């Protein structure tokens, strides 16, 4: 039998159900590998002892009806987990232990999942390389000193390095799909309103959405099915019939109309990305899908719109971290002084930059020119997609305009960093679902991803298309375990 940690999620579930493996065996295997992989710095908090205890309890009275029977899972540290430290990658929450569980992690626990740790991420999910985390950079297992993407960088790294069989992230502008693309893994950003935001540390409320990160589309379907639920604790949660995404998974895409937006052919895009896209188009055609040229005319405005809306909401969402009630507090002469010191010392540079941008665009005299205008453009971007979906069932694009870059390479150039999200942010602005699947390598051998964008609440279609692409591409991640000596 192959290594336990080489097994995919669905395979592990199967083996546990067939009693070929126990929860404890699986849990210990992933923990052992995690312990040998500290160099990746994927974890912020290790819940190993507790997890093993829980696995043993599961084994004593296993419930095989559960969808994740005793499966160990490490989660992004943006999800509040009851009695387990939750930091959001920030000093300001360095020692924060929630007394409550996020709905998404609760869904995982309810299905028998066991949390083995909390994974590193950009501070408050603000970043595209995991370099803004207070807890340090994360290594991409693909190659030393390569960023794992962000903000769910700890998640993508831990998943690709097989420290967890699957994981969950959050995606505000690409924070699941871009790191998935950088690490050769699958990442799904569901439709806004599909997964509850209750208990997820908020970045930009109108854009944030939790989603699964897995080794393949099957695992992704299973995880998504578990994560998605209607939740009255989140007013933006949507009540709709949730499918059995895994059972319905189907590689038949005959007759499916797939749109190719011309505006995504951006200047200076590496040739490899173009070729990757062509490869995807070819596979669609070969499998009976129909390729339709479409236009999303306002794509160019997506990034500036995003960098107004997201910081505006963030500037307000992060006001609660003031040192008064919980988290880090610095001593001050008076209340204002305490606020200033707490927030100056507690937040990192990128978070401060976005708070300042957000405060500026909401200020009186600037509101109409920035925030209000951005909201209007956001509507136009959504209209673009609505128009496109009159002609097509889904849209195929590259996930990112480049492969993973070196740690430090873009740290002092925020605009170049922001450009990384150019293919992913329009989807968040429109509230649509999109999946990134690994589709090839660039000449350096770094993974590249393709993105399939769907209609609202039609995750099944993009899972199916991704499933078909996956079968035909047969992507292999060349990870050498270089970090394990």
């Amino acid at each position, binding site marked *: 039998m192959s290594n336990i940690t080489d097994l995919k999620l669905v395979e592990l579930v199967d083996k546990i159900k067939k009693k070929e493996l126990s929860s404890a065996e699986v849990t210990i295997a992933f923990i052992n590998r995690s312990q040998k992989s500290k160099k990746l710095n994927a974890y912020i908090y290790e819940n190993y002892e507790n997890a093993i205890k829980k696995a043993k309890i599961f084994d004593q009275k296993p419930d095989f009806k559960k969808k994740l029977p005793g499966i160990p899972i490490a989660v992004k540290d943006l999800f*509040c987990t009851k009695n387990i430290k939750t930091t959001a990658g920030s000093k300001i929450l360095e020692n924060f232990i*929630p007394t409550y569980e996020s709905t998404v992690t609760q869904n995982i626990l309810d299905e028998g999942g066991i949390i083995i740790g909390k994974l590193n991420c950009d501070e408050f999910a603000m970043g595209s390389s995991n370099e803004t985390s207070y807890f340090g950079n994360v290594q991409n297992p693909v190659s030393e000193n390569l960023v794992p993407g962000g903000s769910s960088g700890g998640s993508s790294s831990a998943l690709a390095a097989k420290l967890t069989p699957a994981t969950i992230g959050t995606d505000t502008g690409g924070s699941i799909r871009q790191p998935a693309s950088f690490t050769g893994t699958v990442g799904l950003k569901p439709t806004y309103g599909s997964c509850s935001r209750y208990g997820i540390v*908020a970045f930009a409320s109108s854009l944030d959405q939790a989603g699964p990160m897995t080794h393949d589309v099957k695992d992704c379907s299973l995880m998504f099915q578990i994560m998605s639920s209607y939740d009255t604790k989140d007013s933006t949660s949507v009540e709709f019939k949730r499918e059995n995404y895994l059972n319905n998974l189907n590689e038949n895409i005959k007759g499916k109309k797939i749109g190719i937006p011309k505006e995504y052919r951006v200047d200076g895009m590496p040739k490899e990305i173009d070729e990757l896209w062509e490869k995807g188009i070819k596979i669609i055609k070969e499998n009976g899908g129909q390729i339709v040229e479409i236009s999303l005319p306002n794509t160019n405005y997506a990034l500036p719109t995003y960098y107004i809306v997201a910081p505006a909401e963030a500037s307000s969402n992060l006001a609660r971290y003031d040192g008064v*009630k919980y988290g880090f507090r610095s001593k001050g002469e008076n209340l204002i002084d305490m606020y200033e010191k707490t927030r100056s010392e507690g937040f990192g540079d990128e978070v401060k930059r976005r708070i300042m941008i957000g405060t500026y665009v909401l200020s*009186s005299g600037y509101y109409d020119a920035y925030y209000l205008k951005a909201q209007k453009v956001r509507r136009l971007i959504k209209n673009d997609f609505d128009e496109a979906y009159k002609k097509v069932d889904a849209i195929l694009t590259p996930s990112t305009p480049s492969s993973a870059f070196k740690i430090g390479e873009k740290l002092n150039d925020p605009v170049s960093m922001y450009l990384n999200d150019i293919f992913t942010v329009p989807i968040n602005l429109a509230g649509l679902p999109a999946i990134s699947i690994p589709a090839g390598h660039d000449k350096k051998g770094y993974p590249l991803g393709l993105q399939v964008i769907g209609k609202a609440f039609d995750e099944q279609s993009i899972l199916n298309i991704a499933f078909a692409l996956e079968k035909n591409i047969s992507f292999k991640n060349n990870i050498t375990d270089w970090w394990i000596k």
Partner: protein
Amino acid sequence: MSKNNGEYLITRNDNKYEVIIGLEVHAQVLSESKLFSASSTKFGSEPNTQVSLVDAAFPGMLPVINEHCIKQAIKTGIGLKAKINKRSIFDRKNYFYADLPQGYQISQYKNPIIGEGSITLDMPNGEKNIRIERLHLEQDAGKSIHDIDPQNTLVDLNRSGVALMEIVSKPDLRSLDEVNAYIKKLRSIMRYLGTCDGNMQEGSLRADVNVSVRKKGDKKLGTRCEIKNVNSIKFMQMAIDFEANRQVDVIEEGGSIDQETRLFDTKKNETRSMRSKEDAHDYRYFPDPDLLPLELNDNYIDKIKKDIPELPDEKKKRFIEKFKLSPYEANILVSDIEISKYFEDVSKNSDVKLATNWITGELFALLNEQNIEITESPISSKNLSKLINLIKDGTISGKIAKSVFEIMRDGDKDPITIVEEKGLKQQSDPKELENIINKVISENPENVEAYKSGKDRLFGFFVGQVMKNSGGKANPKLVNEILKKKLN
């Protein structure tokens, strides 16, 4: 100078200034739980015992609207004859303060739930209409306590997140009496509706007062100052009085009024500048992305309309028509829903005129003296109506009734029992009365002579003597009749 009638005019150096007042009333919504969380709103609980994770703004916590509060706002809107907006939006009002855990207050800015309406005031010289600009829902903040610990400010979050209705009037108020009438009428409407208890001591009703002055005859409004958070009608009146005179003084000295926010110091009886327009907070209002726009349909609003009770204006009309009360009497009796209920209970079983007089006279005096509400009245409506019936059917005189009332106030004793036990029944037997009268006449021959020679005023003396001899129980009407016959 008159502060109280139709208009409040201030005269300086032959210039007459008109005082213009607008009120922003903050009324706490009557609700078991808060606007966006399930925590209790009970007043006076131990500090920080009614605080949920949402109220304390823990990471990842989200607001969920309390439908009851929405209904309460709609009811109040209906009571104010106002437009119910079918689409309203909750905004975030951003500012930092220790008792504001989220770092923003969820409020409604550009799209409030209730639009324009009006309140009718009953002033001595007739009705006056005060226009309402809007009503919106918002969260209350917690409470900062500065005077318990010498080193630290303490924060109590029990109030954090409690639902408030901010009710904004147009600048239509012109005198201190109108301010008094406006607050009382607004409070009365909300009490009728059960949407706010109007308890000013507990802070469920407070107001920001906007004051400006202009030379009489000017059309343009003067620059206003806003006096923040005044929590009693008396203080509102004192604050307006001070502020209007201050503004007139500034103008008379050749200065101009700066638009600013001021605080009223109740100890010194003066308003002080809090912050100028330039220093005003930039609240960076924007729609709360955690909450969807609130959309109401006609069906929903109609259902609430069906539950609206008879309101003071309608009740007053009915009282005047049905009970033939004067507008003045009707106003008093409908001013408070509990008073009107008490009145209707008493008058249901007894004479309306006597009921009106006894409630507005003796009973109100008693309530005033004991400083209690009518719901705490020591005399039940049932026993008061019995007392009135005893007067009406001649069993006791009005005078005796007053002493029976005095006994009733201790323990709500049945007046029929009191009259029987104390033998207070009116003497209405003409023969017995004649015996007493004969006795009085024979004991006072000089006065009889004097009366007969034209001293008419002595008639009262004889009545008094007869009453005295009967121990106050003689039927005064019969005494009069018989005395007249005997003496003439």
